[in-house]
């Protein structure tokens, strides 16, 4: 494949297994970073740029994740950055590293994200914070994250005829995909009956429809194409596009932690809603379209949300996701497997690590190293996520 002038190489990928390990996030990040460096065959003293994805749940070291990981690796004089963008934090860290490489400011960058998430509902930063919309949505509405997921799920049922069985089928599929992923937290088959028997958290979503909170870490070694070749990798996995676009006014779909949407009184809603705009920008940049994809990693915070993503990344028309799921196209062995890693259904959320972990999976799939969950002849993959309040990302990788 010919390089475009925006390609960078993924030379190394590494993870710490997701789970509830009860240890400090720095340890997860360090394990992932060392694995990615070993995978790349690069010494950390040769890394010119370290990009950390921040977590807010670990206080001061979490807010300055780049320096925290750099110190844990052993100060090496590398340039650093720390990025916070909720679930897109990892993608912003990758974007920073990519920009450094494409600008010729460094040849080798290390991107690291890790988290140690508490059990149960995510909650706002502590204290009485009456000017913080995230604090207020809990206080005034009791609007936890699952409430927002359930609002989207119910809307899908009303507009497109999604059923609880469809939602359960997503969980059954992703649990099966994750069975052989050594980094997944849950490696156990789940039946539709088990989903149906699990407790309702926020009607219409049940416990097994909603992703858990987890600990975990992920890291990537990114380089210029030229460095990769000099390093002896003639045809590396490459990142072809990276989109972190914001919504366009007026944003007419509620987003965490919104109380209200923008009004469409003065200006009509844009042709592309937020999630689909994220993916569209990546397709434009890559010069590829949905038909070119071999597989996709999408952010299944809930089973129902995976169906929204099918449409947002163009795997089918609006309202077509249920039929696509039921056809088996998105299951391993189908036309375009979705979440071959097992997705958040098998991993849970380790927020700043998640977007990086998605690119680890893209890398292993494109190299043909995804043992037990390999997408046949994988040539191109997309990874998408949506974070808090206008943050999201889409990354397209090819080989």
């Amino acid at each position: 494949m010919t390089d475009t002038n925006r390609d960078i190489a993924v030379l190394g990928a590494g993870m710490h297994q997701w789970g509830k390990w009860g240890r400090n996030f720095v340890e997860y990040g360090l394990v992932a970073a060392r694995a990615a460096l070993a995978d790349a065959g690069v010494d950390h003293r040769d890394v010119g740029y370290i990009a950390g994805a921040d977590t807010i749940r670990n206080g001061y070291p979490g807010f300055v994740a780049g320096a925290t990981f750099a110190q844990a690796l052993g100060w090496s004089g590398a340039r650093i950055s720390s990025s916070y963008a909720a679930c897109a934090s990892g993608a912003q860290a990758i974007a920073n590293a990519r920009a450094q490489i494409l600008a010729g400011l460094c040849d080798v960058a290390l991107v690291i994200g890790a988290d140690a998430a508490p059990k149960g509902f995510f909650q706002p930063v502590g204290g009485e914070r009456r000017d913080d919309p995230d604090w207020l949505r809990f206080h005034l509405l009791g609007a936890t994250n699952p409430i927002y997921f359930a609002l989207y799920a119910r809307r899908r049922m009303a507009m497109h005829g999604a059923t609880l069985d469809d939602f359960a089928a997503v969980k059954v599929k992703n649990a099966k995909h994750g069975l052989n992923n050594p980094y997944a937290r849950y490696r156990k088959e789940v039946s539709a009956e088990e989903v149906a028997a699990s407790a309702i958290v926020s009607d219409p979503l049940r416990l097994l429809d909603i992703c858990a909170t987890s600990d975990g870490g992920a890291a990537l070694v990114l380089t210029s194409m030229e460095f990769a070749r000099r390093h002896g990798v003639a045809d590396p996995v490459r990142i072809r596009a990276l989109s972190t676009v914001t919504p366009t006014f007026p944003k007419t779909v509620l987003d965490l932690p919104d109380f209200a949407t923008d009004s469409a009184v003065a200006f009509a809603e844009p042709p592309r809603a937020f999630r689909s705009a994220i993916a569209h920008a990546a397709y434009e940049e890559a010069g590829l379209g949905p038909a070119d994809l071999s597989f996709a990693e999408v952010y299944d915070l809930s089973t129902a949300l995976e169906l929204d993503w099918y449409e947002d990344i163009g795997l089918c028309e609006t309202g077509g996701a249920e039929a696509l799921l039921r056809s088996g196209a998105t299951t391993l062995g189908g036309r375009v497997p979705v979440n071959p890693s097992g997705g958040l259904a098998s991993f849970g959320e380790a927020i700043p690590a998640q977007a990086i972990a998605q690119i680890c999976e893209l890398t292993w799939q494109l190299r043909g190293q995804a043992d037990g969950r390999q997408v046949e002849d994988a040539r191109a993959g997309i990874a998408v996520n949506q974070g808090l309040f206008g943050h999201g990302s889409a990354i397209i990788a090819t080989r």
Partner: protein
Amino acid sequence: MQKEQRPAVADWFTTEDGAIRLQGSRCNTCGTPYFPRNTLACRNPYCAAPKDGSELAEYLFSTRGRIWSYADARYKPPAPYISPDPFVPYVVAAVELEVEQMVILGQVVPGFTVDDLAVGMPVELALGTLYADEEAEHTVWMWRPVND
């Protein structure tokens, strides 16, 4: 003796005229309404207002809309939600206001479950009690189903 009623949040809604209204702001130039109130600058990037806040005026929202979606809470959420003991499940609805062409979240008044609701169902604004303590009943806006 009945406890004093006190808004759980200041200046987001008013009951001055006897009926509850959501309070926000609206751009004098392009007409975009905002909830909660925006005083900084009109956020419509196509609007020609000076964008120094002078274009934003107090605005009272319309009080009827249709349900965009709804969900309930079966488990006690974390603080700062103040939950009675034992926990009482509640329903949250996202309601589309025809006049303002926007969706606003609110709890549904107690007594309704998800089985009583449907997407597209008409609702109106109501005053509800979010929680009560020794001093007062802390009130908030809620949505109540109505006949079409």
